């Protein structure tokens, strides 16, 4: 039996080993399951592990590999955030209201991954309905950061980021509504990308805020992330906001552009205020190194300070509408009641957690007749100003570099009782969703406390290949392996 060291494995390197028959998919899946048994009792990234299904699919993959079949992810174990539907498996959204829900169909991204032979090893934890920045809002349990178990892994896709960082699966899919892929990727020292709004189908993703939600990949490298994006991107008639565009070859593009020089903007507003000094120093050191190759200049995104308020009106308003479907009638949790109205009320009161209720109430308030103009409409207009800031900036520069978060990962419990402070920690990721742009988080260093620090590349609409390309260059420049201490002990 081949010895598999998961610390050294990426999707692309595992595919090579599988093709050369140096390892089998069964061995790879078994090793990943062993890793879950070793590490997950501490990290708690998974809500559901499909051991039986994954092993069965691995045996099938091995048979196909023996026959010489070529598929892009044949035999590769990955995880999926538990708000994306895989037929026959639970999709709980980390909510009691969907605790017993079994997906009746596959999300389009899952269909695409299945067609390429991917193996789904399990469903990962999240903040309930993807509402949160720490995974502490999961109705079941909090996920822990593999770099420091007392700290949060970020959120809402904290389970996916922690799973990839802990080598419990070689990649993952998450969803990003206000930073929910990029922020946990930054906190866990992995690569995470939010593609341009419309590049990846949202069909089968449980809706939170439909004009902001976007599915995206997590990987250990930029190449793996680009490779996963390639498979899941593309037009889907089942999603009316899916863009009818040709998807470029991302992997080819980043390799061909390894030496391309870009005009890069540093938004002044992202480097001032209360940002962790040590983190800023690490980021600025990388930027300094990039100056030899790229033209870097300061730019302005003057409406940045209004982004959090805008987002926390628009996202809850959309959530208020989307979450009306959970009423205990057709699926999900139903409370015992004598009348239909009582059943609606009790099912929702007992089924939803605190943060979800808070956002439903904020949304209801913002959309109510007396406050619509002052809140929802006003926020939608400010969203235009935020979008215009970026469009103006992209007349001058190709790409933007910025921090992902104002601080390194914070401690579990540190911000949970002060929701406004928690919301403000999303300040550098939220504007990208409001404007529908592509953004990626790449790890660039470690603090003196051994916590990951990341940088964010932001690009114009549908220039995802340029975002990946600069990320690839940065990754080469940094030239570090991010292996959490939990894997070394």
């Amino acid at each position, binding site marked *: 039996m081949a010895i598999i060291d998961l610390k050294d494995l990426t999707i692309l390197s595992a595919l090579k080993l599988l093709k050369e028959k140096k390892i089998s998919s069964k061995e790879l899946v078994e090793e990943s399951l062993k890793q879950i048994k070793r590490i997950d009792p501490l990290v708690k990234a998974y809500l559901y592990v499909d051991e039986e299904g994954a092993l069965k699919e691995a045996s099938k993959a091995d048979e196909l590999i023996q026959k010489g079949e070529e598929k892009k992810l044949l035999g590769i174990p990955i995880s999926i955030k538990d708000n994306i539907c895989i*037929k*026959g498996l639970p999709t709980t959204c980390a909510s009691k209201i969907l605790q*017993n*829900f*079994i997906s*009746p*169909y596959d999300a389009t991204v899952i269909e695409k991954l299945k067609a390429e032979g991917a193996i789904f090893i399990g469903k990962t934890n999240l903040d309930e309905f993807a509402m949160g920045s720490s995974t502490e809002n999961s109705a079941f349990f909090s996920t822990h950061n593999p770099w420091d178990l007392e700290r949060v892994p970020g959120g809402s896709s904290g389970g996916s980021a922690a799973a990839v960082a802990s080598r419990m699966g070689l990649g993952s899919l998450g969803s990003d509504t206000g930073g929910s892929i990029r922020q946990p990727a930054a906190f866990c020292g992995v690569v995470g990308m939010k593609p341009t*709004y*419309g590049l990846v189908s949202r069909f089968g993703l449980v809706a939170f805020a*439909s*004009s902001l939600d976007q599915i995206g990949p997590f990987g250990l490298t930029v190449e793996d992330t680009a490779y996963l994006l390639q498979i899941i991107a593309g037009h889907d*008639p089942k999603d*009316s*906001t899916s*863009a*009818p565009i040709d998807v470029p070859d991302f992997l080819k593009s980043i390799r061909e552009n390894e030496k391309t020089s870009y005009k890069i903007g540093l938004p002044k507003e992202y480097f001032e205020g209360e940002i962790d000094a040590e983190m800023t120093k690490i980021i600025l050191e990388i930027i300094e190194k990039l100056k030899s190759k790229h033209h870097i200049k300061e730019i302005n995104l003057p*409406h940045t*300070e*209004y982004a*959090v*308020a*805008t987002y*926390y*009106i628009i996202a809850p308003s959309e959530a208020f509408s989307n979450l009306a479907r959970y009423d*205990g*009638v*057709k*699926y*999900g*949790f*139903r409370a015992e*009641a*004598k*009348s*239909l109205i*009582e*059943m609606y009320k009790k099912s929702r009161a007992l089924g939803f957690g605190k943060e979800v209720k*808070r956002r439903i*109430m*904020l949304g209801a*308030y913002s959309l109510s007749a007396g406050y619509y103009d*002052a*809140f929802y*409409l*006003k*926020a*939608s*207009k*400010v*969203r*235009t*100003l935020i*979008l215009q800031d970026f469009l103006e900036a992209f007349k001058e520069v190709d790409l933007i570099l910025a921090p992902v978060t104002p601080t390194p990962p914070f401690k579990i419990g540190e911000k949970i*009782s002060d*929701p*406004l402070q928690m919301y403000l920690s999303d300040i550098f990721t939220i504007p990208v969703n*409001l*404007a*529908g742009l592509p953004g990626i988080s790449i790890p660039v260093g470690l603090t003196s406390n051994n916590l990951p620090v990341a940088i964010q590349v932001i690009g114009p*609409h549908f220039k995802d290949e340029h975002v990946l390309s600069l990320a690839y260059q940065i990754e080469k420049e940094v030239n570090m392996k991010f292996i959490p201490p939990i894997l070394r002990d």
Partner: protein
Amino acid sequence: MRKRQKLWLKNSQEFLDYFKKLQTLDTEKVNPTFHTLRIKTPFREDEIKEFPYIEDILKNAPQLFERMIVVPKVVKAP
């Protein structure tokens, strides 16, 4: 008022105060953005397509009678 309600009220008030920040911007001549994709709403032919997973959907219903979802009585006897 219970402690939890008080905290809830305090937090909610903080949000509403924070949102007032937007009122300082002049947006009179600005059009709202509801989503960022510059495409028109797509239309398709009104054709029937088979959906093969009806039984799987029904399995998620909290209460079934044959293939119908049961809810508390909504009509009053005359």
